[in-house]
């Protein structure tokens, strides 16, 4: 029971962490809760279905399944990244200097738009996501771990590590951190703020697309409304870890996944969605800036 819940929790947590990274990166740089981020995740899942169906139709899946799978992931990531890029250009860029509420409302608008756009084009009913791996799994200390779960945990760990390397080691990552710290100063030393913001959206959306694909493969079902709950929970995870902090988002995501799966297993699964918020309220009550967050000095 314990190992099983731990594995389930890590699977969920990895996914939450991937989505939370997108939230936390955008928040760190723009100070904006990107409500449309959950919808990008949902789009990733739908694009996965579409591309897999396309590759099956042209016979690529029977020719080489791993190749089809990789292509599906790559194409979904590319499409979602371009969605993220476009959304930023249309809905957030004109509001760069507006009062804080404006981009938030704009984000809610984008989220409503995308949700209904997918509902209209793909239908309101659940869509079945094909199985990527065999149903069977391996036995691990009395728990059954499916190949999909192994894949999700491994993929999210690799992505998180490479993001961390990107942010801490590369020049672009350094620029990103500089912009997050101080936009004006960063632009004075020759960093193109617009490029950095676009990159943030592209990376965040790509991670959300991967998360969407993996969750769809895990549950086997996709619906146009899945983005909302996942989005809120990932945001909760980001806040839990201290929003703006990248390790915080990873930690918060995994913690949230574990909390959910353990409370669903040991307490009651009916309130599965509520535990996340209760924990959030408690944590914020104790440490208002989140677990990894820094308290900010405010000036008049």
């Amino acid at each position, binding site marked *: 029971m314990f190992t099983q819940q731990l594995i389930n929790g890590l699977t969920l947590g990895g996914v939450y962490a991937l989505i939370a990274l997108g939230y936390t990166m955008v928040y760190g740089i723009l100070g904006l809760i990107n409500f449309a981020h959950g919808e990008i995740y949902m789009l990733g899942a739908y694009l996965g279905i579409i591309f897999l169906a396309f590759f099956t139709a042209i016979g690529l899946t029977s020719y080489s399944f791993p190749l089809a799978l990789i292509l599906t992931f790559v194409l979904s990531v590319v499409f979602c990244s371009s969605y993220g890029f476009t959304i930023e250009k249309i809905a957030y860029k004109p509001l760069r200097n507006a009062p804080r509420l404006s981009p938030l409302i704009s984000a*809610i608008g984008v989220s409503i*738009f995308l949700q209904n756009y997918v509902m209209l084009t793909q239908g309101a009913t659940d869509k079945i996501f094909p199985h990527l791996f065999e149903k069977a799994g391996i036995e691990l200390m009395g728990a059954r771990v499916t190949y999909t779960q192994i894949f999700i945990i491994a993929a999210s760990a690799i992505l998180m590590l490479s993001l961390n390397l990107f942010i801490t080691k590369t020049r672009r990552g350094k620029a990103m951190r500089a912009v997050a710290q101080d936009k004006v100063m960063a632009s004075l030393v020759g960093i193109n703020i617009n490029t950095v913001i676009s990159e943030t959206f592209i990376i965040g959306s790509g991670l959300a697309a991967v998360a969407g694909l993996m969750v769809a493969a895990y549950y086997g079902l996709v619906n146009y409304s899945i983005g909302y709950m996942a989005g809120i929970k990932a945001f909760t995870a980001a806040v839990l870890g201290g929003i703006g902090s990248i390790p915080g988002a990873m930690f918060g995501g995994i913690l949230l996944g574990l909390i959910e799966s353990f409370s669903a297993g040991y307490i009651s699964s009916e309130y599965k969605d509520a535990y996340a918020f*209760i924990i959030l309220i408690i944590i914020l009550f104790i440490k208002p800036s989140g677990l990894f967050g820094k308290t900010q000095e405010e000036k008049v």
Partner: protein
Amino acid sequence: MLNMFKKYVGTMKGVFSDFKKYLSGRIRIKLPESKTRSIALTLLMSVVVMALPFYGHDYLIDIAVLSGIYIILAQGLNIVVGFTGLLNLGFVAFYAIGAYSYALLNTKLGLGFWASLPLSVMLVTLSGFILAIPALRLRGDYLAIVTLGFGEIVRLVLNNWDSFTKGPNGISGIEPPHIFGMQISKLGQFYYFIIIFVLLAVFVIRRVSASRIGRAWIAIREDEIASSSIGINTTAYKLYSFAFGAFWAGLAGVLFAAKMQFVSPESFTFMESVLVLCMVILGGLGSIPGVILGAIILVILPEMLREVQLYRMLALGSGLVMLMIFRPQGLMGGKGVSFRG
């Protein structure tokens, strides 16, 4: 002929430049300047409003009643977001608590409308206080997410506590209110009944917002640190704001339950919170007449778009984005109103 054309072009240019100025917030909709004109306009409007049930179709009155409930709800949120500058994304939770309190007090304990009303509203105000205590330690976006979480928790409890709230099936058979032994169940009667509450809400909120408390709220919205440094107890005033806003949401909830005679968790989703927030923003943060206008528009517009039902949410989504880009201060908001996190 050419002159006429030139004149026409000239006027149109004027109209366009006025419109541009309006969009950029340099001018705002002005109510009539002189007192007589203002009285005449008020009289005309009240005649139209009061006479509606006599010439209106039932469908129209129904929408009007719904608008009335939303006006009260949106005015409640306007206190929190518009006056005090605290973003609440789970405001519908208070509306839900109000509606369910009346539904439960009525169906389980058999209490009538007038007995349940103060109890329910008190309960909602209390829940506003309770939420405010942890939430007020937080700023801007953290507050938004905590209120969102609170809204979700309330909805999940209503949805899952089957033995108490009947879960997703909702509670039916709620009694309509009585006045002097007469049951208010006809649509026309309910319309006047709602109008009384709308007037009460607008009157009280106007008075409070013009008072010391209201000015303290606006000071907090404009600059919290500056206002605390001139001796405003910001925590206390934010607490009042939350509780006072929740009060009206609770009232709107009770009225909603009494009107529908049925409540279910479906009426209290996050989308509903967003809709109410849109009413406040469309009208103009902190503007009482603006929020009335915003609520009426956002109740009527979806009804008008029923023909193209599938596309109306697309329109709402893109409309929000465009509103924020072209007229972020809302239809009747002034230029001075800003929002800080």
